[in-house]
C-alpha cells in the first residue's frame, strides 16, 4: 500500500487500467512526453508507448471528437482537457455526439469515453484557469459527471469511469491535487458511480459538497463541533446522476440542509440538490435551505480569489443561520 496524493492516485488508476485493458488509450495536450501539465499522466507514454498515450495538436473540440470516433470503433479513450475553462470548444462533441451516440443508434454504437479535466480554483492561476462549470454538464442527458475528493476516491472512481460503457466527465479538484496523502492500494478495485459518501456523521445539519470544497466543509464541521453543533458532511462524488436517497435520508435525520460549492450559484448543481429536497424532503425541512457558493461573477484573478471561493467562515455562518 502506498501513501499517495490525489494526482498520484489518478496516475495509478490510469496506469492500472491501461495495463489491464489494451483498448484504453490516453490523449490530450502535453499528456505524453511532458506527462500532463499537472503530471497526471506522468510516465504513461514511456510505459505504454506513443501509440497509446497520444500528444495531440492544440484543439479541444478535436480531442473530444476523436474520442467519439475512437470509442465508436472499439477503443476506450481517456482524454485530458488541460483546464476546465478550455472545455467549451469540446462542448459540441460532448453534448451532440458523445452523450448521444448510444441513444441515436439505439445502442448500435457506444461511447465509452472519459474526459478528465482539472476543476476549480484557489491556486492563483491566470484567467480561465479556475473554472468549475460542472452544472452545464450535469444538464446533459447521457453524460455522467464525477468529482473525487480524496486519493482513494480518485483511484476508485477513475477506474469506474474508464470501465463505464458510457461517457464520463471526470473533474479533478486542482486545489487538492497534492493536498494530502492517503493509503491507496493499487488493486484495480473500482468504486460505484452512483453513490455519495458520508464523510462525517452528525445530527444537526446536512452539508452536501464535492471536490476541493470538502476540505473547507470538514474544517467547518470541526469548528462547529467545538461549538456543539454536529453536521453530517456528504461528498456528492457523482454529480450526475445524483444519489438523492442518501441526501434525503440525511435531511430526514437532521432537518437542515446546507449546500457548498465553488461554482457560481445561479443554476449550479446546488440548485438541483435544493430542488430535489424541496420536492421529496420538504416535510423534513425545519429551516430554509442554504447555499454557500461562488458568487454569480467571473472567478476573479488571484488577488481576490480567496474572497470568491467559499470559506470556512462562510460555511460556519450558513450552518449557524440554518440552526437559528
Amino acid at each position: 500500500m502506498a501513501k499517495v496524493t490525489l494526482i498520484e492516485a489518478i496516475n495509478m488508476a490510469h496506469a492500472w487500467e491501461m495495463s489491464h485493458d489494451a483498448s484504453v488509450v490516453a490523449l490530450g495536450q502535453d499528456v505524453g512526453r511532458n506527462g500532463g501539465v499537472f503530471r497526471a499522466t506522468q510516465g504513461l507514454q514511456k510505459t505504454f508507448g506513443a501509440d497509446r498515450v497520444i500528444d495531440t495538436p492544440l484543439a479541444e473540440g478535436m480531442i473530444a471528437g476523436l474520442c467519439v470516433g475512437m470509442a465508436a470503433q472499439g477503443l476506450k479513450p481517456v482524454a485530458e482537457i488541460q483546464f476546465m475553462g478550455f472545455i467549451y470548444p469540446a462542448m459540441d462533441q460532448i453534448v451532440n455526439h458523445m452523450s448521444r451516440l448510444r441513444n441515436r443508434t439505439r445502442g448500435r454504437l457506444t461511447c465509452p469515453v472519459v474526459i478528465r479535466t482539472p476543476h476549480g480554483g484557489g491556486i492563483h492561476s491566470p484567467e480561465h484557469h479556475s473554472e468549475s462549470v460542472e452544472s452545464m454538464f450535469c444538464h446533459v442527458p447521457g453524460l455522467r459527471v464525477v468529482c473525487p475528493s480524496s486519493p482513494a476516491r480518485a483511484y476508485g472512481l477513475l477506474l469506474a469511469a474508464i470501465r463505464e460503457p458510457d461517457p464520463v466527465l471526470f473533474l479533478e479538484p486542482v486545489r487538492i491535487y497534492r493536498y494530502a496523502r492517503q493509503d491507496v492500494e493499487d488493486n484495480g478495485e473500482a468504486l460505484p458511480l452512483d453513490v455519495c459518501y458520508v464523510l462525517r456523521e452528525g445530527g444537526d445539519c446536512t452539508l452536501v459538497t464535492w471536490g476541493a470544497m470538502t476540505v473547507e466543509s470538514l474544517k467547518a464541521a470541526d469548528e462547529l463541533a467545538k461549538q456543539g453543533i454536529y453536521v453530517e458532511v456528504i461528498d456528492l462524488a457523482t454529480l450526475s446522476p445524483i444519489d438523492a436517497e442518501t441526501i434525503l435520508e440525511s435531511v430526514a435525520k437532521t432537518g437542515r440542509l446546507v449546500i457548498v460549492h465553488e461554482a457560481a450559484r445561479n443554476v449550479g448543481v446546488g440548485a438541483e440538490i435544493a430542488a430535489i429536497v424541496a420536492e421529496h424532503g420538504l416535510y423534513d425541512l425545519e429551516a430554509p435551505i442554504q447555499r454557500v457558493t461562488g458568487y454569480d461573477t467571473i472567478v476573479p484573478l488571484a488577488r481576490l480569489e480567496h474572497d470568491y471561493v467559499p470559506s470556512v467562515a462562510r460555511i460556519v455562518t450558513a450552518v449557524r443561520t440554518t440552526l437559528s
Partner: protein
Amino acid sequence: MNTTAQFDIQYCQYLDADGRFLPDLDLSTLPSFAHDPIELVRMYKMMVLVRAFDTKAINLQRTGKLGTYPPAAGHEAAQVGAAAALNAEDVIAPVYREIGTQMWRGVRMAEILRYWGGDESGNDFINTRHDFPWCVPIATQTLHAAGAAFAFKIRNEPRCALAYIGDGGTSEGTFYEAMNVAGVQQLPVIFYVVNNRWAISTPLSQQTAAHTLAQKAIAAGIPGIQVDGNDLLAVRHVIEQALARARRGEGPTVVEALTYRLSDHTTADDASRYRSTHEVEQAWNIEPMKRMRAYLERLQLWDDVQEQSYKHECSQQIEAAVSEYLATPTPPVTAMFDYLFAHPPQRLLDQRDQAMMNSRATDNHG
C-alpha cells in the same frame, strides 16, 4: 524573398456531359472498373434507384407521411461513385444528404424512411453495423472519421474511414482540426467534400474566398484533389486512389467533388427565394445520370427497354420499403429512455415509469 513552399491542385474528369471521354484523355489511365460491365451497370442502376427513391421521399413528405427530408438529386454520382470505392469493413461518417451512399452501403430504404420519419431506430442500420449514423451538426462527423481511422491505425487494421462534408461544412473550424490531426498522425481517412455550390441559401462565393475547396488540404499539409462530382468514373477512381494511399500508410486525402444541389435544401426550404432558375437549368445540363447512361449506351450495356423495366423494378422495391415503413408502429415511449445508458440510473428509471403512466393517460384522453 525566396519561395519556401509550392502547391498545386489537380482536377480529374473522364466523361463530358454527354458521356464521351474528354478529348485529351489518356485511356490507359482509366481504372479497371471502367472496363467491367457488371460493375458499371450495377453502379448506374443504383443511381437510378436513388433518384427514384428521392422523388418518392419528397412525395411522402409533401403528403405528411415523412418529416423534413434532404433531397439528393444531382449527387448520385458523387454518392454512388465514392461508396462503390469503399470496402464493407471501411467506415463512413455520412451527412444527412448521403442517401445514395447509404443505399449502396446496404442501409435499407425502410431504415432511411424511419429515420427521416422521426424514429431513431432508423439509425440502427442492420447491414452497416460500424458506420456512423446520419450526422446533422455540420462538420462534426469529420472528427469521428479521424477518430475511427486512429483506432484502425492503433490496431493496425487495413481499414479506412471516409467523412462526408458539404461546401458549407468546410467553413466550420472542426473540419480543419480533423484534417490537421489526420495529417500529423497520417491517419487512413478521406475527407470527401461534396461541393454542391450552396449551403442552404449561401452560395460558395459567400462561403469562402478559396478558389477550390480541395486546397484547404494544404493548410494541413495533406494532398487535396478536385474531381468532377457528376462523373461517376472519375469520382470512384479518385476515391479508390485515395483509399489505396491510405491503406499503404501514406495518410489522409481531401477529395473535392464538384456537383450541384438540383433540389431545395430540404423539403422545408424554397430555393427559388435565393437562386435563379437559369442556374438550376444549367446544372441540369451537366447532371450525372444522363452522362452515365449515355456512356453505358455507347458501350451497348444499356438501352431504353432496360431503363424502363429497371425503373419499374425500382418502383416496386420502393413501394415495398414504403409499405414496411408505414407499417412500422410508433416506438414505445420507453424507447427514449432505454438506449441512453448501459446502466440507467434509478432517477431515469423512475422517469421512465412516469412517462409510461403519462403516455397511457394521454392515450386514454385522445
